[in-house]
């Protein structure tokens, strides 16, 4: 079993359009990799493939064995409100990952008085902290963060990324930060990959690459 998170020769199509054509990517343990690309280029699809939420049409994803029942690569999405059951209190949401929420309370990611609240009683930034906390509580080896701070204010952005980077600096996990925001990736990642460079068969893409101009 490998200890890196790796996708090799991944192909994926929604309906009949190929979104990913022969894409390969690798994240080493403890490494913080930025994945950059314009909207609609397949970043989120790749993030879902790497965390086992989608299956590639062709190609393989290899993920190290997890520490428990949970997958070793955890996906955190931008839409925190959709990522949690609206009928569950925060305490129960966190308990799904680990019985004891102490680690995320100690790191200041989640505050104890949220535990008895419902998701709609928290703000967007607070809920995103809960969403991230749940992923961290199951002690993943990789955190795939898909635009997790894109809809948050600058201060919350900094707070959330500081906590993620602290954990990565301790060697707890590797991070794949997915974003269209180059300055953010510059600030957090040690290596930045552009989506278009991951695609081996560029010749297969139809016509001139329009998305290149958009960026």
């Amino acid at each position, binding site marked *: 079993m490998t200890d890196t998170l790796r996708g090799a020769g991944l192909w994926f199509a929604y309906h009949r359009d190929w979104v990913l054509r022969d894409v390969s990517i690798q994240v080493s343990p403890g490494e913080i990799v930025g994945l950059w690309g314009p909207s609609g280029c397949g970043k989120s699809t790749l993030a879902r493939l790497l965390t086992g939420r989608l299956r590639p049409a062709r190609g393989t994803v290899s993920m190290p064995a997890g520490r428990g029942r949970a997958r070793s690569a955890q996906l955190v999405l931008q*839409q925190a409100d959709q990522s949690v059951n609206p*009928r569950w209190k925060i305490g129960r949401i966190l308990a799904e990952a680990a019985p004891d929420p102490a680690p995320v309370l100690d790191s200041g990611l989640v505050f104890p008085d949220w535990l008895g609240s419902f998701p709609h009683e928290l703000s967007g930034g607070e809920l995103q902290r809960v969403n991230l906390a749940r992923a961290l509580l199951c002690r993943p080896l990789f955190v795939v963060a898909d635009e997790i701070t894109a809809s948050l204010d600058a201060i919350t952005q900094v707070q959330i990324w500081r906590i993620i980077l602290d954990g990565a600096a301790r060697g707890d996990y590797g991070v794949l930060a997915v974003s269209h925001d180059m300055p953010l990736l510059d600030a957090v990642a040690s290596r930045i990959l552009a989506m278009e460079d991951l695609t081996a068969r560029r010749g297969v893409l139809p016509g001139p690459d329009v998305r290149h101009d958009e960026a």
Partner: protein
Amino acid sequence: MSAPAVARRSLALPDRRTRIVAFLVLAVLLLIGVVVAGTVAQDAARTTHLDAVSQGPSAAHWFGTDRLGRDMLARTLVGLRLSLVVGTTAALASAVIAVVLATVSVTVGRWAETAVNWLVDFFLALPHLVLLILLAFALGGGTQAVIIAVAITHWPTLTRVLQAQARQVVASEYVASSRALGTSGFALARGHLLPHLLPHFVVGTALMFPHAILHEAALSFLGLGIDPSQPAIGILLSDSMKVLSAGMWWLAVLPGVCLLVMVKLVDSIGENLRSVIDPRSYHL
């Protein structure tokens, strides 16, 4: 809060939700009243008064008497109670079948979904009443047979509704997150799916109830249902047919109207319950 504010508040009309809840409480109390009255009237429904045979409505017998001088009000109340018992049991059993099938169809796998869809289509394609009659006949008649027959024939539409709801939950991001955390299929169904289906289950049961009552009456009317010695509404109506041409209208009209009113009452309980629990109305 200051005193004038309290006064103004108590003068204002209660909002829609409060009115609906008040109606629901009253309607349920009325149904409980029918059950209690039906239980109390058991003896009166069987006592014959040969000095007062086939009489029209009067102060002594509000609903008149039948050809054995039995009080029709008492018989109607006992019949309504029986209908309620049969209706509740059959509707609940049917709704439980629907929840189980809907849950299985979205959690077990593609083949389970195909199987459930096929089963729903099969039961929807068969004529309702024919199937009911065949089932009641095959099960040998009687109260139990009516309950089973109604339960077996009424789950398909609710299954469809619950399936749609269940699919939505299963496709949600929070279920995907939960799976990634290693939650088992059973825990997913119990923690995420069933609590979401519960309100639809309650409303579905309430709306299935009137169907169950009417079909019980229909089966009993046709002689395939409840034991003829019991004063079920269907049997009262069936008996009244024989003497309707003699002008004894009260034997048919009064129990029939009572059944109709009760069905309408239960139906509006279901509708109102739906508007309280699930404001985005759906078709059943």
